[in-house]
């Protein structure tokens, strides 16, 4: 496998505001199984970044270990990336973000990587409200180690191994909302129409943004008895209020019926316009979000869409009151108080 694919540029490919084509947001060829949900999510990430005209090199990609965690190699080939060890991406992301607050951090993890070995770090990165987009490619199993049940596998669901999972599932969206995350969404790898704007909204949010994406593992967990299979997901998806994502540059038209929509302005100026329906809830209220998720869960449905947004929270840098300049750009002059000060300090120890 070569690390570089031949660069062939079609002159007529559409370009975004920065003059980049979609191809500029691609990465290496995927080595995942044909049909793997993760590849669809990879494509959605590429699409979202392209459409938002994000400068590719101003993104840092992070992941743990697993099939899912391989995928950062398959998008944004012009961005730096790092594969942490299994379950420890949140802490590595935290450090990276502390070093440079000016990049866009996109983390990709698996359900094993996050809900099992990474559970402690996940809860604490949420608690610190690190400014990043955290994508879980959730297939209810350990793909790379050949299909064991993960902690997000629903009770009774069975993978190719055939034994129904006897443990209760952990719902990462509920965990995140409960722990105080400011942006929580759920998508399905098979529904790009919804996933791309979800990702865009997550990128527009400042603070921790979880996007949990049901992403069937076609090799080990796509059986009829699996609740993380394509068919099950498609049949049991229940979307929250549909919404439009309106990028910051775009004017917001007012042609909507009073009371039927709710606008949430994100940090970068873009707007999420939620279309209220009968069974929609107030996504800005933590408690209604949790309730809506619980209700769906009890009914055996998968609630997708934007589950919770709160734009009022401080991110880790705000909380720590760090200086505005990225820490990794500070020079000796900024950092080292010099010998005179040292002499003065020494005085205190005489």
């Amino acid at each position, binding site marked *: *496998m070569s*690390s*570089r694919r031949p660069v062939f540029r079609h002159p007529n490919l559409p370009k975004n505001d920065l003059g980049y084509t979609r191809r500029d947001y691609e990465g290496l060829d995927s080595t995942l199984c044909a049909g793997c949900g993760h590849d669809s999510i990879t494509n959605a990430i590429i699409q979202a970044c392209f459409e938002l005209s994000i*400068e590719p*090199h*101003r993104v*840092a*990609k*992070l992941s743990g270990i697993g099939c899912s965690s391989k995928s*950062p*190699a398959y998008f944004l080939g*012009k*961005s*730096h*990336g*790092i*594969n*942490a*060890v299994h379950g*420890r991406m*949140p*802490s*590595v*992301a*935290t*450090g*990276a*973000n*502390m*070093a*440079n607050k*000016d*990049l866009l951090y996109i983390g990709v993890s698996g359900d094993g990587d996050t809900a099992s070995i990474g559970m*402690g*770090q996940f809860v*604490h990165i949420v608690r610190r409200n690190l400014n990043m987009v955290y994508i879980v490619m959730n297939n209810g199993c350990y793909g790379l180690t050949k299909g064991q049940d993960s902690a997000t596998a629903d009770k009774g669901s069975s993978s190719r191994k055939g034994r129904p999972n006897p443990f209760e599932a952990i719902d990462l969206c509920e965990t995140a909302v409960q722990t105080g995350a400011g942006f929580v969404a759920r998508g399905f790898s098979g529904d790009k129409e919804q996933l791309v704007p979800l990702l865009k909204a997550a990128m527009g949010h400042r603070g921790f943004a979880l996007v949990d994406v049901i992403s069937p593992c076609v090799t080990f967990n796509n059986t009829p008895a699996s609740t993380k299979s394509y068919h099950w997901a498609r049949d049991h998806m229940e979307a929250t209020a549909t919404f439009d994502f309106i990028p910051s540059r775009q004017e917001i038209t007012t042609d909507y019926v009073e009371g039927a929509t709710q606008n949430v302005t994100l940090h970068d100026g873009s707007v999420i316009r939620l279309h209220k329906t009968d069974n929609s809830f107030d996504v800005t209220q933590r408690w209604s979000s949790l309730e809506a998720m619980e209700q769906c869960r009890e009914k055996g449905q998968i609630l997708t869409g934007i589950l919770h947004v709160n734009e009022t929270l401080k991110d880790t*840098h705000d909380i*720590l*009151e*760090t*200086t*505005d*300049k990225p*820490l*990794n750009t*500070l020079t*000796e002059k*900024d*950092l*080292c*108080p*010099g*010998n005179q*000060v*040292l*002499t003065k*300090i*020494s005085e205190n*120890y*005489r």
Partner: protein
Amino acid sequence: MKKLNRINDFVIRFANVNGSGSASANNLFAKAVFRLGVPVSPKNIFPSNIQGLPTWYEVRVCEKGYLGRRGGYDFIVAVNGQTLKKDYEGLESGGYFFYDSTKSLTEDYTRKDITLIRMPLTDICNREIDNPKLRPLLKNIIYVGALAYLLDMDFSILTDSIAKQFSKKPKLAEPNIRALKLGREYASEHFAHTCELSLKRSDKLAGHILIDGNTATGLGALYGGATVAGWYPITPSTSVIEAFDKFTRQYRMDESGKRKAAIIQAEDELSAMGIALGAAWNGARAFTATSGPGVSLMTELLGLAYFSEIPVVLINVQRAGPSTGMPTRTQQSDVLACAYASHGDTKHVLLFPCDPKECFEMTAESFDLADRLQTPVIVMSDLDLGMNDHVSMPMEWDDARRYDRGKVLDRAALDSMVRDWGRYLDSDNDGICYRTYPGTHPEKGAYFTRGSSHDEYAAYTEDTDAYKRCMERLSQKFETARDLMPASHIQINANAGTLGAVFYGTTTNAANEAIEQLGEKGIVLNSLRVRGFPFKDEVRKFINSHDQVFVIEQNRDGQMRTLLITELDLLPSKLISIAHVAGTPIDALSITRSIEALLIDKPKPETPKGGAA
């Protein structure tokens, strides 16, 4: 009975209960000795507990300048009932037993070879101090006042110290000074000509400071340019971060009152190391500080940093292991755990400071080394060094010094490159390649960092040859590191000497003193103090040029000896382990005795691990 009669050369021990505020009074005393210009080494021997258990504070006063532990004590301030008997029994013959005579001694205190100094501390407090809340604290100050008289100290040193300490709240100084005086008065009335130990002003300390290693380490991180710290509380490393926190709040604030540093108390040590690693990957100077259990937890991530070549700094303030061990006791027992941390073929760069000045210097230096070598650097401090105050030369900073950020390509460098850049391409043939920080260039220099096998262009590979090239380059890089390590301190006492001693870190003071003691007995040893790993060539040369080399250290298994043998391919029978397995700082006398015993009873080559101090 012959009373001990000495000037500026004795050990005084304070036996207290922890959480009773004795620490500041005892510090006051030690600091006064220091301010008298007399070399002093205080050792706090405290329990892993917050309140109510025995704690000792031992102050060695030594005009000659020996700063290691001496062993034994000549004077004891015995104000802890729980340990009274033990404290009594341990006193040197001819010594002084100072106790709170409010409660009298029972009949089994029968020693005839010591001098009892009875002071009814509690009574005095109850009588003289109105505020009952202040009594327990001031009781300690009172005995310091008494000591001033007993040891014939310049009293103004103490009152000045108090005044300095409370310079911002002079009101608080008052009762303390009164307590000091109370103590002195009582003593002068009752203990005239009682004590023949005395403290005279001296000039042995010129420009020195008295500081704990962790504070110096924190300062080193400040000066070394660290901006990100991930950490998790653990004794005895916590105060490294506390110092860094304090200093950054003083010297790293921008105009708007925001800090030029991010310090994150993580949820555990895995996360603390992850934070440091992530920040270092992203181009900040970053570190974490921990102790044994934390090192064990960081093992996996250290392997990632080694293999993906991320310059992260770890301060390991060692304590007595294994496992939870004795969390408030000192030891040098993580040498192997750190040198070979993580599964697979891994080796890490270690630095071994021996005093606060070196804590400062080596910590600052560790960031340069890590950046230059693109690998973790572990600073091997310990509880004794980190948490006790030490007489040290003052720290210095050369303002002309520039941070060595190592081989980093910025945007301009990337633009001007002619040939293809590969993250792991060894173009200089020193095992070190060129890195880029994320976000540098729109088109060039991006790569995916990973702990899995990678080729020169950072691409994932399972190719045998690519893997082998990478592993061998890492070995070569370790060779490059060898030259960059701080020079060993070598002391040659006999030019054609056959006996040598090797030691490191906090073993230094006691070892040097032991060498002098042995010298007086006609046993002349040359010595080498190891300051870094991989070992510089001089270490091998030194050992090879001696017939027998004692490796003196504070652990059971002779871990440095092990490392020396395997990494330098030395003859094991030549290296004799002098291992101190106690948890308390090593002392000169037991080293001297062990070496003497070994030399009389010449070791056979089969059993070279003969000594145990």
